[in-house]
């Protein structure tokens, strides 16, 4: 299933899509695969697999910790691709989220290195696209070409501080969905959801509706809202105005805080079910 179809399916059910993030290689490569499969089986509409990076400037403490553990155990590009492959058969689209240097320097073990090799291997594993937290469309020529060549979605971020002109430019470069960062800050669960997010979503939709922003084959672009969502109640709230509710740190926290892997997976399933129920009870 493609990202676009997953969002359309949720829309047809009158609700927002639930997007869940977990890093590859955490707590181990096999453990990470088990966790991502559990996530996919517990009610998310789209899975994000993180490729841990040594310098994750967009991430808060929870995802940083998980990434450090994964890196200390030696997670590599090929492990990320293997994780994608292991969940791609579950009927839930999978995108990778990572920092740009890892894509630019990607080596899957073969002789080629770089953006083209990454795109080829990601598509070959059944991956649907890539979220790029530190790549803006202004610097993305190589990725635009590679994502076109391999038919991958490209999800860029917009922020409350983005100007209308930048939102329009970014929306035009996106495929699959656009990632709206709801707050000015890093990833991490928060007690209250953002007051800036509804206005940002409205600005994105206004930009997307301008004639000529989106290509004819992609008449609408769903808006996913991320940063800060931690439970079903917040998912319901964000789902009332966004097309997608993105949850990361709260899910990672289930595994990080658990006394043992089984308890972590149980907590992950429980939270995912709670979030999935949340997006289903939104008033839209």
């Amino acid at each position, binding site marked *: 299933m493609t990202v676009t179809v997953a969002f359309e399916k949720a829309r047809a059910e009158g609700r927002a899509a639930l997007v869940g993030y977990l890093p590859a290689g955490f707590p181990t490569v096999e453990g990470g695969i088990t966790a991502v499969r559990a996530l996919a089986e517990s009610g998310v509409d789209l899975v994000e697999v993180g490729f841990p*990076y040594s310098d994750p400037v*967009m991430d808060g403490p929870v995802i940083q910790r998980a990434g450090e553990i994964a890196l200390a155990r030696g997670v590599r590009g090929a492990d990320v691709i293997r994780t994608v492959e292991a969940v791609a058969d579950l009927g839930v689209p999978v995108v990778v989220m990572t920092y740009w240097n890892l894509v630019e320097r990607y080596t899957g073990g073969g002789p080629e290195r770089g953006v083209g090799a990454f795109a080829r291997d990601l598509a070959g594993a059944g991956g649907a696209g890539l979220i790029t937290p530190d790549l803006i469309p202004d610097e993305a020529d190589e990725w635009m070409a590679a994502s076109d060549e391999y038919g991958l979605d490209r999800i860029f971020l917009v922020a409350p501080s983005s100007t209308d002109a930048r939102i329009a430019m970014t929306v035009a470069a996106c495929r699959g969905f656009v990632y709206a960062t709801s707050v000015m800050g*890093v990833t991490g669960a928060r007690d209250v959801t953002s007051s800036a997010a509804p206005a940002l979503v409205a600005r994105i939709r206004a930009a997307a509706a301008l004639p000529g922003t989106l290509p004819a084959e992609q008449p609408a672009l769903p808006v996913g809202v991320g940063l800060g969502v931690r439970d079903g109640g917040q998912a319901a709230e964000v789902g009332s105005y966004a097309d997608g509710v993105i949850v990361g740190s709260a899910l990672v926290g289930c595994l990080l805080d658990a006394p043992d892997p089984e308890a972590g997976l149980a907590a992950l399933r429980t939270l995912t079910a709670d979030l999935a129920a949340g997006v289903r009870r939104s008033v839209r």
Partner: protein
Amino acid sequence: MNTVDAGLLSAAGLLPDASGHFGRYGGRFVPEALIAALDELDAAHRHAMADEAFQAEFGRLLRDYAGAPSLLYDATRLSEEVGARILLKREDLNHTGAHKVRNVLGQALLTTRMGKPRIIAETGAGQHGVASATAAALFGLECVVYMGEEDTRRQALNVARMRLLGATVIPVTTGSRTLKDAINEALRDWVANVDSTHYLLGTVAGPHPYPVMVRDFARGIGVEARRQCLDLLGRLPDAVCACVGGGSNAIGIFHAFIPDESVALYGFEAGGDGVATGRHAASITGGAVGVLHGNRTYVLQDSDGQTVESHSISAGLDYPGVGPEHAWLNDTGRARYEPVDDAEAMAAFALLCRTEGIIPAIESAHALSGALRVAKELGPASTILVNLSGRGDKDVETAGAWFGVL
């Protein structure tokens, strides 16, 4: 009246391009949330470059507060030892003891012009943190400095200095707990507080406009030195030598000489235990092209693109990246970059102490050691300008232990 040319206006017309690229290097690889603040900073920087009132105020601060122009010293005893004429640009005599005061004064002035009441800064050994705290005190700004937890222990005196100056020092406990993680933490703070806060980055790295802005504030070093050389020699030097970590002192002294084709430019990276050992901080010599901290440049990284830790006896050079303009100068061949290992740097450190009565920063000792190498190449008739970028008071403990005199 003795006026100081802040070196700002004549920087126009060279690289980078409008979006901050030096050839394939530089640019902006940061979260979209920071783009508005970078655009605001870029506009403020461009406006300041064209504004004579800014130039005059910056020049006044450099002269009356920092002590610019710094002296050009004809080091005759050292020259006899070395076998070439060595001129030292005495940035070590500036207030706070290094070239860094130029950048922090420039950025603090811009901060007040942007109406922001708070600055944040990263620091490794604490030198840029102390300089930032100094400028914050001078301008009445709130100052928060991020510093690797390990470094706060090793450099307790600099932590005390920052606190005496009114700054808050936050130990960074994430990642490798070093300078690169302090930069990550500062970037995270900036994303969350960008309306009130300016990130006072300490070197010519980071996303555009930092590499060009920090260069513009540091390039007075070369503007002064070029004029001082002409006054003293009636001609330009044959070579200019500087140490390169992030590269602000090097670009500061190089930049005014770039159009002078007769002047060879040499940047000396920290070779640590030797580049072949893998324990070094020589990003250009021993790294590969990648993206780190918002710009494309040479990076010390593993085969997957994960940043690897740098090593150097000199904390100020201990950084796994390098400014994008240096990457470009290297690739175009306009400047040459070579490693100087710990032992070579410390030998030059000792030589300067005993021949001239000057204790240099260990960073600057790398430049000096490189100059000895260049002197052999160019011969006794040559004149070599060395940026003595900082003083060695902060390094007495390290040097004392190295030479066994503690």
